[in-house]
């Protein structure tokens, strides 16, 4: 696959061949200067439609792993593939195309507080070039589904933590991503709200979205029979 293909809009429309395996990591390491190893020799495969947990204590490398998958960081060594797409051959300007196929839910939500709930979610579609009545309809549908319809004209800064997290989820899934990455999405929430968020993510997974959820909360993981990638000091402890 040449770089010319990566430059082609057609390629980014249909070009990535997605088989059974959506994501493949081969001996991936990430070392921050001067020599802080955040990840060491991580290898695993993620199948389409899977829901996996990435667990481990703080500093284990969970966020780094998700950032690598999302293209926010580059691995120091090893290889990563999204379908048959080699991350190493991706230029910085192509990363946006890859990110458009994914959704990312941040622990700190990363919402625009001065904009309304509707505008924040709409933005997720607008950057993909979907706008107008089609986009409005999709936004309204997802807000209704996540119980935010009544809040759609409210500014984000006036919402509670749980509501903000639901807006963040709405913004990520309104784009109908192939892969949803969630970095400690329940980190700032009480147990009841955490269960609610997990339930929403499981519903989305049941509809075909592949989910990678990073959490340090073992109790959330224990209750669910999902594949777990456990990290400890940057090493794969258990998969």
């Amino acid at each position, binding site marked *: 696959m040449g770089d010319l293909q990566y430059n082609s809009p057609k390629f980014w429309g249909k070009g990535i061949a997605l088989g059974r395996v959506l994501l493949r990591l081969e001996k991936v390491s990430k070392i921050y200067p001067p020599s802080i190893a955040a990840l060491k020799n991580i290898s695993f495969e993620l199948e389409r439609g899977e829901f996996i947990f990435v667990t481990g204590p703080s500093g284990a490398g969970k966020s780094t792993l998700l950032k690598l998958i*999302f293209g*926010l960081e580059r691995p120091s060594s090893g290889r990563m593939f999204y379908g048959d797409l080699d991350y190493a051959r991706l230029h910085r*300007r192509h990363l*946006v*195309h890859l*990110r*458009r196929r994914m959704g*990312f839910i941040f622990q700190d939500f*990363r*919402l*625009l507080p*001065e904009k309304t709930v509707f505008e924040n979610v709409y*933005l*997720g579609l607008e*950057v*993909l070039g979907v706008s107008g009545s089609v986009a409005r309809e999709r936004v309204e549908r997802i807000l209704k589904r996540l119980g935010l319809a009544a809040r759609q004209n409210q500014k984000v800064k006036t919402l509670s933590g749980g509501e903000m997290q639901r807006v963040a989820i709405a*913004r990520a899934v309104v784009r109908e991503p192939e892969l949803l990455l969630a970095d400690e999405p329940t980190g700032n929430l009480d147990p009841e709200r955490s269960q609610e968020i997990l339930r929403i993510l499981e519903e989305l997974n049941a509809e075909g979205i592949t989910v990678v959820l990073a959490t340090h909360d073992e109790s959330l993981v224990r209750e669910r029979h999902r594949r777990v990638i456990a990290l400890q000091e940057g090493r794969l402890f258990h998969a």
Partner: protein
Amino acid sequence: MLKKVLLEFKTHQGSYGLTFFILTFSVTLFLFFSSLYYHLYLFSREAARSLALTVYLAPDLRPQTQKRLLQKFRALPGVKEVRLVAKREVLRELQRIFREDPEILQNLDLSKLPDFLEIHFQDPLRDLPRVQPQLRKLEKEPGVLRIRYAQSWLGRLWHLSQLLRRLLYLSMALLLASLLFLVVVTVNLTLEKQREEIEILSLLGASPGYIGRPKMMVAFVLGSGAFLAAFALLHLFESYLQGALAGVIPFLNLRLSLLPTNYLILGTGGMGFFCALLSWLAVQRYFS
């Protein structure tokens, strides 16, 4: 695109308003002081334009030698006119000057009075420095007593205008550097406030162009608008400046010209493009 630009203005109206104010203030200061230095230089230059050289010739010089010297001075580069002022003409001038005290000239021996050449240049500021080496040689020519400026204060003014020209370049460079520094800092601080928005948009998969285009357009409008506003402010101030500067050198009636149209267009466009470029670079920097 227009809708996006308007939305961009509306969303960040506070910071963009402040940016516009700072840019306008900076450009006004720059234009004001540049104009002031420039006109100071113009005044001195205009005055020094009447600068002429006086070449005193030895008394009782033979007409052939006078003619030869006349031709030599006429051949100097940039010379507009060489006039031979005969001793009788000098005497008439002295008599006019001392008409109240004619006794001063009573014992004057006409034969001791020198003839002289009055040399006018097309542009004394440009031409005089060029002919200096030749003048030094000509001063040693037989028949030449001395070469000096027609009036000593004009000579000083000429030196002053030379100094002012250098100061003008230096001041303009410093002012321009200060203006650019202020613009860079202002535009960067404005976009620093939008850093989170840029980062979030890039995380959502927005291309640098999608994020940057409306911001660049806004920066262009702000930059060029600030330049025009600064010019308009100075224009309002022009009549006052006209009066203030016109009185500096009473016999020189110099029209105050703020900026020729082509410089106005260049400044407006340049400022707009510079701000747009800074805005683009800032978006690139904050793009995750």
